[in-house]
């Protein structure tokens, strides 16, 4: 649907050289921490923000210089931007009235949209009297009532409380599947990104980091930033020294598969990234699995038992070179954890207690090794990692 290379800037490039190709009917998420340029990018698509250079293509047509009204896109704003002086009905009908539709047509289309969104009993009310979730639905109604070429969502759920957010998320996903319309969705919430998107574009300071399906992002992050951003609790980063197929971690030495070892041979000090879920209490691993990974012993600092799983926290010391890179990463991710610790997710049946010296098993096939200087993932499986742009 489009093929864009865009630069934007007033000295500072808020969006720098981003190219994303979105297929018809696809649900694409733009995700990143605040200030990464995702909203700017969306506003450039819809035409509210000028494009400094590059081409914005919609359906094979260059739309850089078209006004928003000529692009035939529908957008849901973060604060909904409903017209408070109009009733819900008129709010939804607004785009149709502007397009000069007949009254009968407006009636029919608005009723259809309100039925889809379950707004029937609120049609005559003013937005001021609606709850957050209802306003959200009105904003969506205004978008779906037109036959727009694409939907654009700008953090539509960030003003809702957690429970409603979950419901609306499912609602949006259902709606998009039903209407089959191309959608671009901006969020800073990685859960929304993972659950909604066909593909997810991760942005950092105006640069596209990786464009891939949620699974690809999770299993094959292109660099430290993507690895740290996607997943909750986030991926653990540990200093690692590779020697042959042996990797020396703060907690002990583990074996890694030969093909991974090959890629990182002779690199010296690296950062190992392991998802919390790749760990397990060694006593709960059946023997057939055990040889896939390695075990080590470590002292457990804090344990959080959640019923079906247990989070255990294991502090460790990192050498200064790695420490610095990790601190920078935290900053990029808007985080503020100052402690270098390993977060591991164990089965709920685990009996590990605080202060115990536990035997932990780790699935090393799921381990990634990153270059501490560039942050690149050295063990990425390019076949299954979507698109990772390379910057000079």
């Amino acid at each position: 649907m489009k093929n864009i290379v865009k630069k934007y800037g007033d000295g500072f490039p808020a969006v720098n050289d981003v190219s994303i190709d979105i297929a018809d009917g696809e649900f694409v998420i733009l995700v990143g921490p605040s200030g990464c340029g995702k909203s700017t990018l969306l506003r450039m698509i819809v035409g509210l923000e000028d494009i400094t250079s590059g081409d914005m293509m919609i359906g094979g047509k260059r739309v850089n210089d078209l006004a928003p009204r000529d692009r035939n896109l529908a957008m849901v704003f973060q604060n909904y931007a409903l017209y408070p002086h109009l009733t819900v009905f008129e709010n939804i009908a607004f785009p149709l009235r502007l397009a000069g539709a007949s009254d009968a047509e407006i009636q029919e289309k608005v009723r259809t949209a309100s039925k889809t969104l379950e707004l029937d009993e609120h049609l005559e009310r003013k937005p001021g009297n609606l709850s957050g979730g209802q306003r959200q639905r009105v904003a969506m109604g205004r978008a779906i009532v037109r036959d727009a070429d694409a939907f654009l969502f700008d953090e539509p759920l960030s003003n809702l409380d957690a429970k409603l957010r979950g419901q609306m998320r499912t609602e949006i996903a259902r709606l998009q599947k039903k209407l089959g319309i191309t959608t671009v969705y901006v969020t800073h919430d990685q859960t929304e990104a993972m659950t909604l998107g066909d593909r997810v574009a991760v942005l950092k300071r105006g640069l596209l980091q990786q464009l891939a399906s949620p699974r690809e992002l999770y299993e094959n992050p292109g660099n430290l930033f993507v690895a740290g951003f996607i997943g909750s609790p986030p991926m653990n980063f540990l200093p690692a020294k590779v020697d042959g197929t042996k990797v020396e971690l703060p907690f002990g030495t583990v074996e890694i598969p030969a093909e991974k070892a090959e890629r990182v041979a002779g690199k010296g000090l690296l950062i190992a990234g392991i998802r919390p879920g790749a760990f397990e209490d060694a006593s709960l691993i059946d023997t057939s699995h055990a040889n896939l990974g390695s075990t080590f012993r470590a002292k457990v600092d804090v344990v959080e038992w959640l019923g079906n799983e247990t989070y255990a926290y294991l502090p460790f010391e990192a050498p200064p070179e790695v420490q610095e890179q990790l601190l920078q990463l935290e900053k990029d991710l808007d985080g503020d954890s100052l402690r270098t610790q390993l977060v591991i997710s164990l089965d709920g049946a685990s009996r590990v207690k605080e202060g115990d010296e536990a035997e932990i098993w780790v699935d090393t096939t799921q381990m990634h090794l990153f270059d501490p200087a560039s942050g690149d993932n050295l063990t990425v499986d390019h076949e299954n990692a979507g698109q990772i742009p390379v910057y000079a």
Partner: protein
Amino acid sequence: MGNSPLRKAGIAVGALLILTWCLLPVAWIISLSFKSQESITNGNPGFLPGDGTFAGWDNYVAAWDNEQFRRAIFNSIGISLIATVLSVIIATLAAYAIARLEFKGKKLVLTTALAIAMFPVVSLVGPLFDMWRAIGLYDTWAGLVIPYMSFTLPLAIWTLSAFFREIPWEMEQAAQVDGATSWQAFRKVIVPLAAPGVFTAAILTFFFAWNDFVFGISLTSTEAARPIPASLSFFVGADPFNRPASLLAAGAVIATIPIIVIVLVFQRKIVAGLTSGAVKG
């Protein structure tokens, strides 16, 4: 609070005091307008007309029967309405530009507007009198509409630009994405949202124009354009040494009615918080 009945009583007393202070002259003028001419010459200081001096609607009928008076009311309504409409339209457009656009000299426009508002009206009357006579605007409606507009525009622009600034940008952007041109977005979304501001500006402008005396008396010479405040001062009756006070009072009351009507009509529109519900609650 323990002293809440006391507080309520205090507020009531305070309100009553202020109301008396403000409305006593008005009440007095109304009382005066119902007294007969004799009652005033004889000296009748009571609030209610003395025995046999109650004039009923006579003064009102007499004032209304006066051709000059009717012309003056007509002039005042026409001139004030034209000045208000023009001033509000221009101010809306100007305020929108000031609130939304970045352009060179924006500060200059705002400070100049303020400077004009601070200019003493009286100091302009002389030059205007000469100018208007030279270019033929003297004693015409336009000759009054123009100064009224220029003196009310600054205030209207300031009021309205404050209102426009309160309206979230997204409202307009949403309208544009929905397919509106900039003009449609302005007319269908921004102006209705700024309606309280527009009506405030309209009321203030109308007040200024309606109540003005200095321009009204200096820039007119006949009833072709003379507005009501100026015209009332020409209301001398038969005996120039014995001014018809009760007739004047009746005229003044009639002259106040349009103002009251306008305020009552517009006040309904000035509802604060119209924008509530536009964005997240």
